[in-house]
């Protein structure tokens, strides 16, 4: 018998710090698999954000740096410009990328920085205990939208892929989910493509991963998956928003 | 070519403002109406507007953003400028900001200036970065012409190293300017030499007229005249 599925080598063999059912672990694994498959682990520098995945630096078996909240794209820029031969990826949550770091992500994308961004959107602030995120859905109850997100005063959830796709320079932008194996297979392909774009020196790539936060959503992991399918996917459609290799 | 509109362009710190101020003070002795237009939208300090009060005493008008806006770093083009250009019977000195970036402020007056005619000087100090040799000077000249939409028709040689200027240095720098002059067939209108140095040197060796320059834009430790 052959091993057909095992822990990727680019993932350090320690338990994750995430809550049961949280999708961060799946995303970590997918990234690590891609690093393994491209054999780029030793040349990769990763950037951990502030948020639940602040400890991501412990999990990837490559050089890592922790960025200030929202500034990962700027830090990634500084690294990539100094080390153009290394592969640089940032791992960012929705507060990090779509709120405090909006300027940094838009401008890194617009400059066409040759980096890969993995954007984890779970529609809530996990680390600080479940406050409203820029991607929190309309009507969704959080600590800071206790009566539900009211679009009249809190705005509508930001669709980052769509927003970034209006820029000319990014090479690859895609949104994926992880609630079923078929989605996970697609997510892996998207992440792989995003890194491929960087390896080929083609420019900025970003994959938004819709994910769950069972703890702060107050749902079981199964219910959380169902909630994501029912509520998030209709508002955040899956698919490729930008692929500079395909002629539109 | 009209000689009562004189424009000073050149790289940052080439000496445009000092030259314009010096020329205005020299001219007011012979002419009734002398106006300096401070078109410097790129420099925050050391602009001719800082001399406004002193020049006013001498009867020279400085056109620059009024009052408190004078100390701002916004590209304020005074509404008086266009009228002053079209006005006649006055000597008009246009002190422009440095490099092609500063010269851009001239472009909006192109339609007026092309009708009135003008003298446009490129002030050159070959001891400044980016105008160290003829290749660099020519690049600067071209860039200024493109961004100002105007033609440079004369060079002013202003070779100096501030307080450390001496004859040898002037001679060496001036030669660079003369080489450029020959290369593109533009006259060197004059060689500017700071007064304290001028007094000490033998000036008969220069073919071009010498303009003796006084330093008006002083630093605080030079006890600036307010």
């Amino acid at each position: 018998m052959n091993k057909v599925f095992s822990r990727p080598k680019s993932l350090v063999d320690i338990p994750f710090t995430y809550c049961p059912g949280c999708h961060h672990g799946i995303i970590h694994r997918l990234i690590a698999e891609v690093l393994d498959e491209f054999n780029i682990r030793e040349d990769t520098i990763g950037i951990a954000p502030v948020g639940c995945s602040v400890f991501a630096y412990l999990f990837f078996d490559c050089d890592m740096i922790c960025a200030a909240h929202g500034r990962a794209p700027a830090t990634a820029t500084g690294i990539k410009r100094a080390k153009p031969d290394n592969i640089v990826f940032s791992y960012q949550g929705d507060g990090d990328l779509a709120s405090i770091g909006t300027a940094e992500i838009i401008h890194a994308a617009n400059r066409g920085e040759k980096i890969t961004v993995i954007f984890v959107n779970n529609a809530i602030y996990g680390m600080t205990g479940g406050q409203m995120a820029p991607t929190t859905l309309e009507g969704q109850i959080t600590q800071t939208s206790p009566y539900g997100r009211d679009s009249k005063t809190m705005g509508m959830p930001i669709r980052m892929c769509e927003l970034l796709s209006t820029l000319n320079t990014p090479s690859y932008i895609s949104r994926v989910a992880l609630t079923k194996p078929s989605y996970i297979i697609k997510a892996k392909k998207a992440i792989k493509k995003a890194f491929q774009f960087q390896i080929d020196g083609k420019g900025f790539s970003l994959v938004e991963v819709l994910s769950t936060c069972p703890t702060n959503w107050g749902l079981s992991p199964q219910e959380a998956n169902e909630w994501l399918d029912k509520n998030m996917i209709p508002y955040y459609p899956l698919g490729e928003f930008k692929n500079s290799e395909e002629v539109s | 070519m009209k000689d009562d509109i004189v424009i000073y362009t050149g790289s940052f710190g080439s000496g445009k403002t000092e030259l314009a101020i010096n020329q205005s003070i020299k001219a007011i002795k012979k002419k009734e109406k002398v106006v300096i237009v401070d078109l410097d939208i790129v420099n925050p300090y050391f602009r001719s507007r800082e001399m406004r009060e002193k020049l006013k005493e001498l009867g020279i008008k400085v056109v620059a953003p009024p009052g408190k806006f004078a100390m701002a770093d916004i590209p304020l083009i005074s509404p008086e400028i266009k009228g002053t250009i079209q006005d006649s019977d006055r000597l008009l000195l246009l002190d422009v900001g440095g490099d092609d970036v500063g010269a851009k402020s001239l472009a909006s007056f192109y339609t007026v200036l092309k009708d009135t005619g003008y003298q446009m000087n490129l002030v050159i100090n070959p001891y400044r970065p980016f105008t160290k040799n003829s290749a660099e000077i020519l690049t600067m000249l071209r860039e200024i012409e493109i961004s100002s939409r105007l033609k440079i028709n004369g060079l002013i040689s202003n070779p100096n190293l501030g307080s450390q200027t001496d004859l040898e240095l002037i001679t060496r720098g001036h030669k660079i300017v003369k080489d450029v002059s020959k290369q593109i067939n533009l006259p060197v209108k004059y060689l500017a030499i700071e007064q304290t140095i001028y007094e000490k040197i033998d000036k008969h060796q220069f073919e071009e007229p010498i303009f003796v320059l006084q330093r008006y834009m002083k630093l605080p430790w030079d006890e600036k005249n307010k």
Partner: protein
Amino acid sequence: MAKVVIDREKCKGCELCTLVCPQNILVMSKSFNKKSYHPVEQINPEKCTGCAFCAMTCPDVAIEVYK
């Protein structure tokens, strides 16, 4: 002939793998692991096809698959 190997200690008992198993042969154990979770375990191992859906879905990378 296929086989899954579950790392009982890594499992956080989220149950996501049990939902994706086409053969319905993953169930939660009655016993606890050291972290006090009920880890997942396999019943009727002969039914396993080695599709690896469970491993793919596991957020804690606690499952290995052999085929």
